[in-house]
Structure formats: C-alpha cells, structure tokens
C-alpha cells in the first residue's frame, strides 16, 4: 500500500485554487462578430476561425507557437473539416480569455504545456472547422436558392451545379448566419481526410504554417516589437538564489548616456535606458550590495551530499511511498544478486534561443498591453492587473510566436510580466517598457530543471528481475505555487518512475522533497527527464546481471502495455537489433542501446548507436525512434519533434549542467553551459505507428528515451555504467 497521497498531475493546474470557476468552452456557438482591426476586414465565424474578403482563412491559436508546430497542427485540423485549401490558411494567437480558449488539461486556464495542445484541441478544432464550413454552406444555399445538401466544397471552393464561390466571396454572408449547434455538425470520417495524416506533397502545397516567415526574417517575435518611445530595462538580480538588495549606488549607472531611470523592484534593481546597449552598460556600472542572509550558500557538491544523506534517512525530509507492490523494497533481500546505484542529475537551464523578454505598455488608471511569448497568457494578465491596480479586462495580451521555451515561458509566478509591470509602474507608465534578459541572466538566474538523486536498487535471481526500488530526493517544482494544494504530492517529481510499466513482482517507488531557494521549473518532459534515465539505464544494468538481452528483457516485461511494446518492437526491427553492428573503420568500439518510455500519453522507443575511440572520446552515430501518438495529424511535424526532442535530450545527457559554487551558478553563457551542436547530432530516423487512437502530444515524449539509450549503448561498448549526468565528452 502506498501512502494516502493525492497526486497533483503534472502541469494540470488546479482550477479551484486559481478561482477561475468552470470554463464554459464555446465552440461555434458564439455570435459571429467582426474582428476588430486588421487590414483584411476579417470576419469571425467562431472563436477559432476568421475568413477574409481576400479569401484567407485565419485560424485562432489557443496555444502558443514556439517551434513545436502547433500553428500547423491546429490549422490542419480546422482546414480539414472546413475543406479549406492549405494556401489560404493563416494563423494568429488568441487573446487572453479562459472561457473561450482554456485548456481542459490545465483545469480550464489557458496554457501551453505538458504536450497537451493537440490532445486538448482535436475535438474543438474539428468542430470549429465544421461549424465554419456549415455557415459558408448555409450562406451559399441562401444566395443560390439551392438545397445545402447539394453544395460541395473542395480546396476552398463551394459549388452547386454551375454556381461556385470562394470562401472570401461568401464571408460576409456567412458571418450573419447563426452559428450552428455543435451537436448538429457531422465530422469527417478519417477515410475522407485530405490533410490530416498526409505528407507534404507538391499538389497540396502543404508545408509548416510558420516556415515562410521564419526563413526570410519577417516573423515578429516579442523581442521584435519596438513601439515608439520604448525604453529597454535590464535587471541586476542577486548572484545567489534568495539574496535581496541591501543597498545600491546608481551614480555611475545614471552617468551612462541613454540611461533614464534606475529603480528598485522586488527582484532587484532595474536599469532603464533608451536602448539595449545603454541599459547593459548602465547595469554593468551599477553597484549593488546584496543581503545574503536567506540565500543559498551551498555548492553543488555539498547539496549532492545532503541529498544522499536524505536518501540514507539522515535528513529531515519525509519519505513518501508512492507505489508499493508485492513485498516492495523488502523483496530486495532474497536469493540472487542485489544491485544498487545512485543516479545523480544536475540543475539544467532551458536556454531557449530567444532570450526572455516582454513588453508592457502601461497607461496609469487606464490600461495595460502586454506583448510576450508566454505559455500562460491569462496568468500574466491577472498578474499585471494586480500589480498595476487595473481590472483584468483592461489588460490585453498580444501573444507572439516565441523563440523556443521548453517550459521556461510557463511560469506560475508570471516572472517576466511581474518584473516588467513593476518597472512600468515605477516609472509611472511614462513609456513602453521592454524587459530584456541577457543570456547570462537566463543561465544564471534559475528556474532550472531540479537537481535530483535517484537511489535505485534491484534484485536479480537467475534471469529474472525480482525486485525494484526507486527512491528520489528532489526539489518540488509545484510546491509553493498556487497549483499545488496543501497535502498533495507533486507528481511531476516522480512521473514516469512510479508508473514503471515493467511487470516486476516487487516494486517500491518513493520520493523525498528537499528545500532550497534555487528556483526550479518544468523543463521539456519534466520529471521524465530523470525518471526515464534512471529507470531505463538501471534496467540494462539488471539485464546484464540477469544475462538477458536488453530488448528481450523489456519485451518479456511489457506484455501488459501493448502500445509501449508496439514501439519497442518497431524500433528494434527498424534499428536491426537482431543484426550485429557494423564495425567502425577506425577500430572504435561500437555499442547499441535501447530505451522505451511513455510520457504525456505518447509512447516512444529509441535505439542509439555509438562509437568509442581508444582515447575515450565517442560519437552518437545514429538514433532510431518509434513513436505512437495516436492519429498522426502532421507526420512531418511529428518527425521534427522527435528529431528535436532527441537533440534536446542528448544535449542534457552529454553536456548540460548548472553547478553552484557557494550558492552562485558557475556557468554563464553558451561557452560554458554546453548545449548540443551540429557536430554532436546523430543521424535520426523516425517511424510513426499507424493509429486511430485520439491524438496525443509530441513536443516532449521524444526527449526521455534518448539519454538512457545512449548510456546503454556506451555500456554495451565499454562495460561501464553512466549514473552521473552529464556523461561528458569522454568515457
């Protein structure tokens, strides 16, 4: 029996805590309205679809596009049910509005995260497309005086007999048609799909919706928004986590040409200037004395010792048993051999390529406009309203595409907007404020993937794994936020570990939550970043002891999980697992490793091949990936997310770490925070399991298996284990 624990599902935010009330989702049933503004006189048919007189169809995204391909995915679903031609499709982000654009997986709050966008949008976007289609058909029927049933639509053209019209020609009439009852809408049978599941082909002119704007420099991210009179702000924050401003001397900062203001805010001292360079020079010249009385002062080595002391029962953190099956950890004693290993994981920075930034245009007593690439626009809206003393309805949010995020722009404390709004308030709303973070701010000021230690233990008897224990010491991501009610365990710390799918007779999984002022946050695939690594690399260590082939062992333990078994078998087949690896021409040792992991309701298995030179340097040559994410809406976007997820996971496995010295981060920028570069990128092959299950996410699930697949491959090549991350450049 496990403790009497309630889980707080990872990134499924608790509605009641936020006081949002139940969100009534409107799909195709709100009155048609003229969209305000815009050069094309777009007519809004429902909350998700606008049609222009210029024959464009604009899909309103309730999720932010930050590279994961959601602008393509959501647009594909709408275009499919609407029978629009792909060339007509445009996209824009929705305004901040929980009632219209809330995420059911976030308890009704708007949000992008947890690979939920497609999962949460599938039905709603289909209905939105079908509803818009029905309105266009009704408008044509009225105009042509024909039975709506005789009207056909193909690639954005309506026709009946000799009559035909484009969407644009009918937009105005369609916008006056009452929106249909969603229950009356008939969705397509999958056999009728012309866009969903289809590959890019010359005759469909199908491509990523955001490709053209990102290859010619025309895409406008938040950082590219530069309203007239804008001031740029940089903040001097405490070098140590938890430090506070004791005093500051701004004389030298104010002497820098272009610096207009130096103001203290909750989180530090902001230097405001007419341009970035002046703000940076001003901040460099600012002298701040910090009060470190409540700050983290330990170094990473000491913290690691403390985590291990917790796991040995010498600390103060309570041990929460989350899963206890069979005899649990007691079964570690018994016949055969007991194996133990500590897996050590460092803090990781997200380091999205577009440094964090947002713009606040504040008119005291009147309004505020936020321009940002945020994953939680309504949280930002509420935060700005509170800080600026405005009604939330007076705060508008212009969500822009973001230059990556990986979780960093989903902040329960609305960190960017908080800082920017405090600065805007401090300067009396005199000018638009563009808060900028430098790369150093990004690497050194936290919201890291938590540092963690997994203490793994297992018992092998003969060729069987008899017992499994996984005890984790980690900081909670959700504790202290409004998203984790008191008395509830943060599932994100153990997801993918407590629900280990292998049929082992005795299993015990537990967690201990340690404290530190270091700020932590969900990092692409969240708890799975460490649970999958510990689970899959440790399983290979047990397989070795049991004399079992790693693939065959997994296969034998996964009979109860057909979809995970499906991707495991597919990847083994495509990687040629049963064939020996080709020897390296230079005599390097070669190795192959396999790992399988379910996360965010998608199933992924990966095989990695490595070559290890005699000096210990190595390369990851090839990664083969099999994914089952239900209906594959855009196969090429899925492949792209698997390729990118593999690169992101490999980056963490090979080189990424933020370490602390006396409480301050050692790393500062890309020259010492080592992220993956092209020379380290393997060849990647992705295979998608055909499926008619409801679609699930692909942004994160490609990440977890790659680290352990590489570690297992290195173990196969060298006989060594790799229980401390990052692995580094040599083995």
């Amino acid at each position, binding site marked *: 029996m496990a403790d009497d624990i309630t889980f707080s599902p990872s990134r499924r935010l608790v509605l009641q805590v936020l006081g949002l009330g139940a969100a009534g989702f409107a799909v195709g049933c709100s009155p048609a309205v003229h969209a305000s503004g815009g050069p094309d006189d777009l007519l809004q048919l429902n909350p998700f679809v606008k049609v222009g007189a210029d024959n464009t169809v604009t899909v309103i995204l309730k999720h932010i596009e930050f590279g994961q391909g959601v602008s393509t995915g959501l647009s594909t679903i709408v275009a499919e049910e609407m029978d629009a031609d792909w060339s007509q499709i445009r996209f824009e982000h929705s305004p901040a509005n929980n009632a219209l654009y809330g995420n059911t997986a976030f308890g009704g709050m708007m949000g992008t995260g947890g690979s939920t966008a497609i999962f949460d949008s599938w039905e709603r976007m289909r209905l939105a497309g079908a509803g818009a289609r029905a309105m266009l058909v009704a408008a044509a029927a009225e105009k042509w005086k024909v039975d709506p049933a005789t009207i056909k639509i193909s690639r954005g053209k309506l026709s009946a007999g000799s009559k035909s019209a484009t969407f644009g020609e009918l937009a105005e009439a369609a916008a006056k048609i009452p929106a249909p009852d969603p229950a009356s809408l008939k969705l397509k049978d999958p056999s009728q799909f012309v866009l969903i599941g289809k590959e890019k082909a010359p005759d469909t002119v199908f491509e990523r919706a*955001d490709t053209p704007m990102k290859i010619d420099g*025309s895409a406008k991210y938040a950082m590219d928004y530069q309203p007239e009179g804008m001031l740029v702000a940089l903040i001097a924050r405490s070098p140590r986590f938890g430090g506070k401003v004791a005093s500051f001397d701004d004389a030298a900062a104010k002497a820098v040409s272009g610096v207009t203001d130096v103001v203290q805010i909750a989180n530090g001292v902001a230097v405001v200037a007419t341009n970035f360079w002046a703000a940076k020079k001003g901040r460099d010249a600012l002298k701040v004395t910090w009060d470190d009385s409540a700050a983290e002062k330990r170094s990473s080595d000491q913290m690691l010792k403390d985590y291990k002391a917790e796991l040995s029962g010498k600390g103060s953190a309570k041990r929460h048993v989350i899963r206890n099956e069979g005899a649990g950890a007691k079964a570690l004693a018994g016949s055969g051999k007991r194996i133990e290993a500590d897996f050590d994981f460092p803090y990781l920075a997200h380091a999205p390529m577009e440094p964090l930034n947002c713009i606040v245009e504040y008119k005291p007593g009147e309004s505020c406009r936020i321009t940002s690439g945020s994953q939680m626009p309504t949280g930002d809206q509420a935060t700005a309203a509170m800080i600026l003393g405005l009604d939330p309805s007076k705060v508008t949010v212009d969500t822009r595409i973001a*230059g*990556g995020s990986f979780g960093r722009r989903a902040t329960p404390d609305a960190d960017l907007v908080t800082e920017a709004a405090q600065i805007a308030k401090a300067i009396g709303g005199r000018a638009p404020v563009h808060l900028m973070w430098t790369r150093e701010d990004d690497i050194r000021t936290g919201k890291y993937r938590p540092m963690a230690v997994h203490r793994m233990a297992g018992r092998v008897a003969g060729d069987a794994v008899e017992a499994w224990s996984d005890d984790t010491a980690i900081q909670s991501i959700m504790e202290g936020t409004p998203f984790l009610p008191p008395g509830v365990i943060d599932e994100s710390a153990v997801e993918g570990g407590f629900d280990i799918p292998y049929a082992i007779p005795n299993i015990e999984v537990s967690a201990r939550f340690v404290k530190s002022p270091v700020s932590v946050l969900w990092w692409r695939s969240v708890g799975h970043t460490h649970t999958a690594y510990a689970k899959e690399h440790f399983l290979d260590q047990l397989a070795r002891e049991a004399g079992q082939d790693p693939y065959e062992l997994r296969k034998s333990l996964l009979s109860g999980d057909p979809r995970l078994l499906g991707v495991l078998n597919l990847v083994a087949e495509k990687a040629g697992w049963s064939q020996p690896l080709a020897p390296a021409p230079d005599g390097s040792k070669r190795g192959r490793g396999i790992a399988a992991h379910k996360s965010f309701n998608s199933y992924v298995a990966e095989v990695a091949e490595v070559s290890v030179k005699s000096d210990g340097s190595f390369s990851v040559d090839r990664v083969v990936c099999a994914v089952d994410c239900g209906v594959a809406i855009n196969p090429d976007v899925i492949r*792209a997310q698997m390729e990118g997820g593999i*690169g992101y996971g490999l980056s963490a496995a090979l080189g990424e770490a933020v370490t602390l010295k006396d409480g301050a981060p050692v790393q500062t*920028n890309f020259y010492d925070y080592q992220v993956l570069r092209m020379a380290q*990128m393997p060849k990647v092959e992705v295979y998608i399991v055909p499926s008619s299950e409801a679609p699930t996410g692909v942004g994160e699930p490609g990440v977890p298996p790659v680290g352990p697949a590489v570690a297992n491959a290195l173990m196969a090549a060298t006989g060594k284990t790799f229980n401390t991350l990052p692995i580094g450049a040599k083995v």
Partner: protein
Amino acid sequence: MKITINGQEKDLEVEQDRPMLWVLREELGLTGTKFGCGVAACGACTVLVDGVPTRTCITPASALEGKTVVTIEGLDTATGKAVQAAWKEMDVVQCGWCQSGQILTATALLESTPNPSEDEITNGMTANICRCATYHRIRGAVARASELLEG
C-alpha cells in the same frame, strides 16, 4: 559613418562601441537578425559583411564603416535563394530564432564550397547553435541547396 546595408547606402550616427546587432535591430528595424548570447557563442546574430559571416553582437558598428552588410531581409543572391528554397522544401525551422544566422552561414559556406561533403557541412555549421536541434535537417538542407544550385 557610411555603410551599405542590403544594397542601400546609409549614413549612420552611432556610438563607437555599440554592437552592430543593436544598430540593425533598434535603429534600422531589421529585426530578422537575432540576439542570442551577446558573446559570439551561438551565431543567431550572424550577417554577411563583404560576404563573410560575422557575429554582430560583438562587432562594434563603427568597425563596419565602408563595408557592405547583408542581413536576412536583403538576402537575394542565387545561393541565398537556393538555401531558403531548400529550407522551405525540408521544413527545417522549428522556433526559428537561430534560422537567419543558419541561413546566412549556409549561404557563405556554399559560396566558398559549392559541393560540400557531409563533414564540410558539419564543420561549417557547427558554430551555430539551434536549441530545437534542427541540425539533422540543416545538414540535409545545405546539401539540397547545393543540388539546387547545380541543377
């Protein structure tokens, strides 16, 4: 100072030490050139200066007096167009933030090495970080652009 940017001669008044990146973005509104690291470690701010890929985040604008600068907005050579066409064909982009720098770096690579080997592509491109790890497709797209230029 006089400088030619995307074919237009400009007469700019800028502080000696202000990096070209910020002059392009804040004074000229050429926001396709991106800020990524500020220390020439990632390549997001790359433009072509007299055809040579240059990191503008550490290059003072004053150092470019009399030079010819091409940013992503002004890329109109046959090689540049082929690189963009290959990027489009292979849907290389994800978040897109690094891609201006990648495309300009690839363009310069193909100007000097029209038929690069896989190793030459990797060596030519590996200094440009893509956090979305579109590397796999960039490698393919550079090779494809080379094919397009030959054909």
